[in-house]
């Protein structure tokens, strides 16, 4: 069997039900063609390098699966038809996976690692936001103190 890596970008304002629905559709194709699902990674909402359909951000997902190759056509067709999909890319990750079961186990491990890393990133971001908020709370007072005398000085100069 071959291993495929499929990345897709969902528009950021999609209704909450849309995302699981799209995941489910892709998985369904894999199952229908007697492939094996390996893992799904949520990269989160990222800033796009350029605007797509007027969107600045996109929700990135990556899915890995084993299959014969027939799945790709069908999945890509689904992606093309869906207006909420901004971009998709399918890549052949491994041409010949000899031992399917070990790969499945491995992928499960990989998925767990990714989930952990994601949680860490999330925690880090929350901490950073917290710090920023605190700084914002602290800053306005000092900012005003600095700027006010300078403005007054400017006014005097003009007059």
């Amino acid at each position, binding site marked *: 069997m071959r291993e495929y890596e499929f*990345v897709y*970008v969902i528009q950021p304002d999609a209704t909450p039900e849309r995302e699981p629905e799209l995941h489910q559709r892709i998985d369904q194709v894999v199952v229908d063609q007697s492939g094996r699902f390996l893992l799904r990674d949520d990269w989160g909402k*990222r800033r*796009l*390098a*350029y605007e*797509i359909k007027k969107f600045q951000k*996109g929700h*990135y997902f*990556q899915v890995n699966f084993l299959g014969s190759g027939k799945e790709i056509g069908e999945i890509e067709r689904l992606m093309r038809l869906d207006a909420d999909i*901004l*971009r998709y*890319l399918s*890549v052949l990750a491994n041409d010949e996976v000899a031992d399917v079961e070990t790969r499945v186990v491995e992928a499960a491990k990989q998925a767990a690692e990714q989930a952990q890393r994601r949680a860490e990133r999330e925690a880090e971001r929350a901490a950073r936001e917290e710090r920023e908020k605190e700084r914002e709370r602290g800053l306005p007072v000092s900012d005003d103190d600095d700027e006010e005398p300078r403005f007054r000085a400017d006014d005097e100069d003009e007059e």
Partner: protein
Amino acid sequence: MVDVIAKRPAKKRRRAGRKMFSRHKVCRFCADKEIDIDYKDAKTLRIFLTERCKIIPRRISGNCARHQRRLTTAIKRARHLALVPYTTAHV
């Protein structure tokens, strides 16, 4: 053979009063087997783009042919997914 070819321009250049840069360039991916070329890794790909987001040619980056080939496909994949820009924003 190689020595002769390498030395001659060096002499000429010196006479012209210019410095000759003969920094030995090594392919980064050959030197460090740990980093693999991945279209998902936008940060690494960015190193090989100019400020205008063009792909830096092999003669400048010093990449070997094999890795440069892999790098360009990776960059093009990343561009399609909007992980890396095609060009800078034009206003």
